[in-house]
Each structure stands twice: as C-alpha cells, then as structure tokens.
C-alpha cells in the first residue's frame, strides 16, 4: 500500500489512535485489579458489607 508523500501524517494518526485506545484499556484493566485487591484486603481484615454479601462478588 503506497500512501504517497504524506505517509508520516497518516501513520502517526493511526498509531496515536492505537496508543490512546491501548492506554485506555490498560488503565481500566489495572483500575479493576486495584479495586478488587483493595476490596479483598478490606474483607480479609474482617470488614463486611451491611448486606453480608462479598464486596468482590460481581456475579
């Protein structure tokens, strides 16, 4: 595929979009793990929800 004299502009656009999407996915995945770990640590220390259900239970 020949993109002509503006290859750098086109490639930068697609790479930037890919990078931002990967960063968003990574941030959301890390945040999920962090919150689950904090909830587990709190439950392990004996703190439970008023409903008595596990805070880490997402099912």
């Amino acid at each position, binding site marked *: 595929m020949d993109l002509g004299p503006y290859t750098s*502009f086109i490639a930068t656009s697609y790479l930037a979009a890919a990078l931002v999407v990967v960063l968003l996915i990574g941030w959301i995945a890390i*945040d999920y793990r962090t919150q689950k770990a904090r909830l587990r640590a709190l439950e392990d220390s004996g703190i439970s929800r008023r409903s008595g259900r596990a805070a880490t239970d*997402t099912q």
Partner: protein
Amino acid sequence: MSLIDLANPSRFLALTARLLPWLALVTVVLLAAGLYLSALAPDDYQQGATVKIMFIHVPNAWLSMFVWGVMSIASLGTLVWRHPLADVAAKAAAPIGASFTFLALLTGSLWGRPMWGTYWEWDARLTSVLILFLMYLGLMALWRSVEDPTRAARAAAVLTLVGAINLPIIKFSVDWWNTLHQPASVMRMGGPALDKSFLIPLLVMAIGFSLLFITLHVAAMRNEILRRRVRSLQMLQARAYTTSAPAGDATGHVVGAA
C-alpha cells in the same frame, strides 16, 4: 431484566460480567473489518491518501460529542430522577470522552497540515472542540477534588448540562461561521455527500468505535461501583476502629492511633 432492575449496582455488576466478553469480541471484529476496509479504500482525487485519516478522525469527532450527550442524559438522571447509577455513568464516561476528543483534535491537526497547510487555526469548529476537551478535563478535576461523591455528582451534573450548550455550537459552527473546516458531509439534509467507497469503511469504523466506547464505559462503570464499595468499607472500618479503640485524649485523637 428491566431498567429499574439495573438501578441495583449488584445486578448491574452481574450483567456486566456476562456482557463484557461479548461486547469486546464484537468491537474487535468490527474495528478489524473497519481497518481492513479503510486500507482498501481508494485515494481521493483531491486529498490523495490523506483521506484515510478521515476513518479515524470522524468517528472520534462524533464520539467526542456523543459521549458528552450521554453524560448530559446521565446528569439529568442524577439531578431529576436521582438514579443510583446515573452519576457512576457520567463519571466513568468523562475520561473516555476526553480521550476521543484528544484524538479528534490530534488527527484533525495531522490531516490539516497537508490539506490546509497548517496544524491549527483558531476557527469556530476547531476552537469549540478544544473548549469541549478543556471541559472534559475540568469535569474530571472537579470529580477528583470533591471528597464526597454525592456532592461532586450534583456539581458535575450542573456543569455537564451547562457544557451541553457547546454541542450544537460544535455541530453548526461550520454553517454559522466561515470556517476552514468543511461542512457536514455525512449527517446532512439530502443524504451523505460521500462516495460509497469512503462511506462504508467510515460507517464500519464509526460503529466499531461506538462499540469500543460502550465496552470501555461499561467496564469503567464496573470499576467506579467497586471504588465506591471500597470507600464505604473504608468508612465502616474507620467507624469500627474509632468505636472499639481505647478512649481518646482531650483533643479527640485516639490514643495509639499513630
């Protein structure tokens, strides 16, 4: 499962656990198809291969406004109906909307340089989208600066609804003012002005990016619900600690708290 059932965060979490893998799968398939079709699209007779930037730029530009629209509806849910997930939805959408707006500005700039001869021009369309980006950042800062989520929610909801005034300004800026940016060529009276060879890849990419937003938004909402559970449990822990700890000194500090 009705909409009222989804007001229960636990039920929402159960739904997301089932929904997210399928949403992610369909998003990947659609984006892959969109990228393939974009690669096959012919060069434009005037713009050459730079027209390929359109397949990234336009979906992000649409989503930058759509996400603020979603946040505005969620803000109504917070202020009018006090739906328990409305604020969660608005807060989770903001960083994703900011990312799409940043990409719209960046790719527009990279498209503008070879086509207009400049990366940036202070015209109505570009400036109003930059303001939208700054409003996203302002909202995110507001949510982070207020400790109590309920108080932050009301302030953020008001700001979001005020900011929604910018959406029609962005949309019609190319009609109301003389700008460097071209007028609407897809969503316009009389149908799209684009040839099918460009329109089909553009629509596939737009649907793919929209599904990407929905997937990321649902996942970010799940995280926000968990974050609020962490906060509630930490407050319970603090209360349990202060009631079970030995009597405090005269200044109110719990003895041995350090």
